[in-house]
């Protein structure tokens, strides 16, 4: 029996409609309320806790608002900017932020330099091979990130794949120390985030109008010059999207520096983790999170703007 012919369903429909709750509103409201509750409001709570004082209690922070009597005027506000001052004064945090930005920026650059030729080659491949190549780029993304980072330990360590091979070949006699270095962090980030760089670049390069290149070639333009003056400028929106998709999560990366990097490596994600899990300093960890968030708001907004612009352009 068709759904709308059931009298029961119809009455529910009219009842809901009386309160303005149409099916359409429900479709919007369900994910909206979920994200409000579990994504947006949590940031407000973190902001609140970042201004409170650490306490030996569970949860380990003092309430921001306290009633000391029973009248409204007995409210005491304890706003404590101390956590932020602490972050600013202890050079550890500032250095961690600067180092994270540096590591993320350099890794993003290398991901672009490696990812661009791959995306370009896939976009210019025959249509039949293209889907297979694309699948091969996406497949590592489906396999465990943690295990793929772990794989590099076996490759980079002193008696790992690379050193064993080079010693066997007689190129070196002492193993090269690669694990627990900054180099390993860069490598790990480029490797893990490479598909995020390739996908938007591919999507952009694939829809490019190739007749422009043909025209340039017909007019005697060398391929390299045609690439620099036509392909590269036209793929800027893909480059922007890819770089932001790598840069933003890389700044707060925790797993890669803690598995591949030196123990003393200063990354802000690692600092936050230590403050929270080892020192149980929830207010300080919250302040670090807010500072990191403020740092990343600009790149995130930039990414969303450029994606919205692309979506409009495509429509």
């Amino acid at each position, binding site marked *: 029996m068709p*759904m*709308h012919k059931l009298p029961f369903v119809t009455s529910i429909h009219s009842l809901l409609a009386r309160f303005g709750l149409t099916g*359409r509103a429900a*479709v*919007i409201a*369900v*994910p*909206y309320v*979920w*994200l*409000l509750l*579990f*994504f947006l409001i949590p*940031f407000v*709570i973190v902001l609140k806790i970042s201004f409170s004082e650490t306490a030996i209690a569970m*949860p380990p922070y003092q309430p921001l608002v306290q009633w000391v009597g029973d009248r409204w005027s007995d409210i005491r506000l304890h706003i404590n900017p101390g956590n932020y001052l602490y972050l600013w004064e202890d050079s550890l945090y500032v250095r961690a932020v600067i180092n994270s930005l540096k590591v993320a920026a350099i890794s993003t650059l290398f991901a672009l330099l*490696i990812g661009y*030729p791959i995306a*370009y*080659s896939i976009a210019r491949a025959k249509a039949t091979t293209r889907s297979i*190549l694309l*699948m*091969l780029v996406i497949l*590592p993304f*489906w*396999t*465990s990130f*943690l*295990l*793929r980072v*772990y*794989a590099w330990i*076996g490759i980079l*360590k002193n008696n790992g*794949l690379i050193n064993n091979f080079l010693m066997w070949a007689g190129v070196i006699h002492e193993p090269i120390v690669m694990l627990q270095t900054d180099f390993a962090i860069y490598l790990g980030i480029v*490797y893990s985030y*490479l598909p995020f760089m390739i996908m938007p670049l591919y999507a952009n390069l694939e829809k490019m109008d190739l007749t422009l*290149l*043909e025209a340039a*070639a*017909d007019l005697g*333009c060398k*391929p390299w010059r045609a690439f620099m003056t036509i392909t590269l400028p036209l793929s800027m929106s893909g480059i922007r999207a890819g770089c932001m*998709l790598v840069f*933003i999560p890389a700044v*707060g*990366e*925790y*797993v890669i520096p*803690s*598995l591949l990097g030196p123990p003393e490596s200063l990354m802000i994600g690692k600092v*936050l*983790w230590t403050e*929270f*899990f080892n020192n149980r300093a929830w207010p300080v960890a*919250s302040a670090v999170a807010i500072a*990191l968030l403020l740092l990343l708001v600009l790149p*995130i907004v930039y*990414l*969303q703007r450029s994606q919205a612009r692309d979506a409009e352009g495509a429509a």
Partner: protein
Amino acid sequence: MSKGFNDRSWLRISALAFGFAFLYVPILSLIVYSFNKSRLVTVWGGFSTEWYGKLFDNDQILQAAWLSLRVAAINATGATILGTCAGMALARFGKFRGRTMLTTMTTAPLVMPEVITGLSLLMMFVALEQLIGWPEGRGMTTITIAHITLTLSYVTVIVQSRMASLDISLEEAAMDLGARPAKVFFLVTLPIIAPALLSGWLLSFTISLDDLVITSFVAGPGASTLPMVIFSKVRLGVSPDINALATIMISLVTIGVIVAGVVMARQQRHRERDMQLAIAGLKDEKT
């Protein structure tokens, strides 16, 4: 195609060869060393499958895997439902109040560093427990909620882009013939976007199965997921049974992705053929 930009195919082929070697050598090395007899993992000591046997004797890993699989299945289902709602709203409902907000809230989790998302979710759970007494402690419930929040963004993006590229005239035709919106959705839209829902479900499942950072924040002392156990083991260095575990997981994912790809391609062909038949039928009627 003119010669000008086609004669450099060797450059493109070497770029692809280098790129795929970079992506796949680490994964292959994991698999090869899982069959290594030697405990040193990277020093070859002969072929052996003993680490697979050791893996299935390890209760801690088996329990963690069981918890992770349950969380991943519930998470994938929840995220697919919520993400489909959000994706449909963004692709089909035009301008509505809160649209910008919904766009922001569905795309921000994709790039947000996980330490921030994890910390803020935990703070939310603690505050909720103080306020209304739910969720009681932390464990499977909080892990699942956190994973849904993260993965519903992926489903939203997939569903939204699929629906945006979908011919709206089919849905309009059904509406013109008097079908209610809900009926149009279940009988017309849903079958067409089913492949997108399947890939969204699978992606949510694998992301949930793999997540370490957010999970560590919101998991209580009693609940350890598979990535948490793996991480605590590999922090101490390479361990051959982790290689065996990795090989099993990689094989399952690869088979899953290939099967899903084949099924989707077949469905796509069927649908295209049906559409062509329908269009041919229309033309016949006209003449």
